[in-house]
């Protein structure tokens, strides 16, 4: 019964001329507003991070029409997928851009690199073994050994330089993270103000999305949004970066063992917690993996190689006799790739090389040199299955395989990100054809409503002239 009454009431209202005018006016307003939304969409069709808007047009109680809401067309599932894919892409990108320099360190050519330096070193021992009293052969050996030591030194220092370079990138990345979190907190505040004032928050939400996407590339994060649209951000280990308008920053502290920068999370009270090991993805995670895992493991093998050459050659040298019949001195000083060097006494006077196995064998006994030369075929590595050159070749191959797999991961992750980007854009980006269609529809609805107005005008005229 009540329904019938209402309907009757409405029918009565509609039938008045002013009622009809109001209806036509609401239509003119509505379609003007809808065309404005369409025009914003067209204007922003190429704007990165722009989410298309849709004017929600609904019939109003008075028989007219109204734009009840300007909706942001948005798929939160696709967006979240994109964030996490973007984090992984950041990791591989960071690894790719840094590991290629590491690969350069191990890129031996036919006449340059550790492999040929080792070969030249063993060859020089052969020549000393052939003619132990020949001073030329001894000088050649001293200089080949020097080249070998220098090659180890420069590979080791190249690796350190790359680590230091990555260290700088880590600090830059942290600065970017802190900047982004500050901007996110700032945008959160604007959103809360706009929501309170009842003004449009869509543009702010687009900004927020872009900032979060940018942040996701740098570090692994979890996000959550409250009803107003404010975003909270936590690191993968649960440490909070942004909550509402508050931020927590990341900082660094020098690791006393490695001299490299550890990452710390600064609490509200200002105390710092080291969280380096918790960061495994994003650009930051990628940098850390190359800096703290990959490069140290390569250096360790390089050191093992250098130390083994130093130890074995020195052991033979100190048990042999030099050209003066004196007991041999250590051939190399140092104990790793970084500090390996030819004993300066030997560089100054190659006759101190202990080529003879016995004091009586001086000067022409080269059997100690022969034993040194034969070290190159000794199976000293990997449970007595690999020679020096096998071991180094395996190391280079390992570096190459790592680079290769990083390249592959990067490439396939790019495809994945592209896929999620498409999924997100499929929902959120502007289609010019769609907008043109809407424009046509809104335009004709607007014209028709204007026609209604002009008919009403004629009707009123008729009424007045009666």
């Amino acid at each position, binding site marked *: 019964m009540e329904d019938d009454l209402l309907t009757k009431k409405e029918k009565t209202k509609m039938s008045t001329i002013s009622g009809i005018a109001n209806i036509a006016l609401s239509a003119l307003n509505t379609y003007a507003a809808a065309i404005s939304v369409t025009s914003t969409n067209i204007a922003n069709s190429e704007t990165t991070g722009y989410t298309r808007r849709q004017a929600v047009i609904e019939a109003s109680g008075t028989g007219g029409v109204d734009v009840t809401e300007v909706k942001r067309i948005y798929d939160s599932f696709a967006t979240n997928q994109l964030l996490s894919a973007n984090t992984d892409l950041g990791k591989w990108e960071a690894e790719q851009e840094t590991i290629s320099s590491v*690969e350069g360190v191990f890129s031996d050519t036919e006449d340059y690199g550790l492999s040929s330096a080792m070969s030249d070193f063993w060859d020089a021992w052969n020549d000393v073994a052939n003619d132990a*009293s020949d001073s030329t052969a001894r000088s050649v050996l001293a200089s080949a050994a020097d080249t070998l030591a220098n090659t180890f030194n420069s590979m080791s220092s190249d690796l350190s330089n790359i680590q230091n370079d990555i260290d700088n990138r880590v600090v830059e990345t942290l600065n970017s993270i802190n900047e982004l979190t500050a901007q996110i907190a700032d945008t959160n505040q604007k959103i809360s103000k706009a929501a309170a004032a009842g003004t449009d928050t869509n543009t702010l939400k687009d900004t927020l999305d872009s900032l979060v996407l940018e942040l996701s590339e740098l570090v692994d994060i979890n996000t959550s949004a409250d009803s107003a649209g404010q975003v909270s951000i936590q690191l993968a280990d649960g440490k909070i970066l942004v909550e509402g308008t508050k931020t927590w920053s990341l900082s660094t502290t020098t690791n006393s063992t490695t001299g490299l920068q550890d990452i710390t999370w600064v609490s509200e009270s200002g105390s710092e917690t080291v969280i380096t090991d918790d960061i495994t993805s994003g650009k930051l995670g990628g940098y850390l993996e190359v800096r703290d895992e990959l490069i140290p493991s390569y250096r360790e093998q390089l050191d093992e190689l250098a130390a083994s050459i130093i130890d074995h050659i020195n052991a033979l040298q100190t048990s042999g006799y030099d050209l003066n019949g004196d007991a041999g001195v250590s051939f190399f000083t140092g104990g790793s790739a970084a500090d390996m060097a030819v004993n300066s006494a030997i560089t100054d006077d190659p006759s101190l090389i202990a080529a003879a196995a016995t004091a009586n064998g001086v000067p022409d006994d080269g059997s100690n040199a022969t034993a040194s030369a034969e070290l190159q075929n000794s199976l000293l590595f990997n449970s007595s299955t690999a020679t020096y050159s096998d071991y180094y070749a395996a190391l280079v191959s390992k570096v190459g395989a790592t680079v290769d797999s990083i390249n592959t991961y990067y490439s396939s992750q790019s495809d994945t990100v592209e896929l999620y980007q498409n999924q997100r854009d499929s929902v959120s980006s502007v289609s010019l054809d769609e907008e*043109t269609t809407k424009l046509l529809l809104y335009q004709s609805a607007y014209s028709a409503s204007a026609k209604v107005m002009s008919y009403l005008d004629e009707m009123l005229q008729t009424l007045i002239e009666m």
Partner: protein
Amino acid sequence: MRITNSMMARNMEYWMAKQMEKLNDASTVVASGQEINKPSDDPSATAQILTDRATISEYGQYESNISYAQTWIKTSDTTLSAVSSLLEDAKDIVLSVSSGDDAATTEQYVTLLESIYEQVIDYANSIYGSGYMYSGNKSGDAAFENSVTISSGNPDSIVYDLASAASSVTIEITDSDGNVVRTLTSTTTGTSAGSNTLTWDGLDNSGNALADGDYTFTVTAIDSSGNDVASRPSYRGDDGGKEIIIGENSTVTLNNDGSELFGDAIKVLSQALTALKDTDNDTIFASDFSDELSDVINGIQAQEVTLSNITSQLTNATDRLDTLITSLTGQVSDLLLGSGKEQAAVELTAQETAYETTVSTAASVLKMNTLKDYI
């Protein structure tokens, strides 16, 4: 799926970039002429290339060691055959003396034999490279030489060999200018058969200390019957043995032991010479020494055979290394080249075509009319 203009543009961009990267890879292969330009291009082939190159370098060094050994052997062989032919000459002289056919006088034979003796000693003292060839490891010392050194005022002991026991020995020490500076006579020490060592004080005949330096000496020994006892320089080297690496854990040893090679020759020649100067009975002299010389010649020829065996061993080793190096070098260049130059060029053309297709698609898609162009 809903597709928008910006999605299409971005996808086009993405694929153009990917295609560009492939094009770059393909053109690097063609430009560098090799498929592997960095370890990540093919990690396992890179390892193979590195070990192959190390092996090639190692084998190259073995070949260089072998060629060093071959030169040494060639030199040694020349020396041995020269000594062997000198010994044949000595044997002829010995036989001539016994038959008495020859018109030459004993004195002339002595001169001839002395010259042979000295030449054999010279050969035994051959220089090779920077040192003496047949002193074993003691390449700084001549193999057979009656010499003695005073260093920092300390004189070496005087060392020499006697063919048989003597009753008195006279040593004359001469300085580098040829002046006799000291004469030592001994009837007790330094008179036994074989190697003898006599110490001296380093003083000259007037009792003054001699300057540091090298001095030579002569030995004259007489037995109880008043006959000369043959003396000769002692071997001053050691048994040496030059070890040359010719392969992985494989070596040959070159015999540079002067005592083993020339000791007997020098001993027999010195005895023959002493006997010839002294003999009353040429027939006894001949039967004594022609047989001994024959034995010595056989010994030296046996050494030559040993050398020639080593030479053929070395030649085999070189042939083997040559083959291995050739096959390894081939393997390395195959690995580097990968599927080959032609294949790389084909790949490049394919990537060029693919890239052109991508960009022309992009161009036609991006300039395509949209709905707005028809209203």
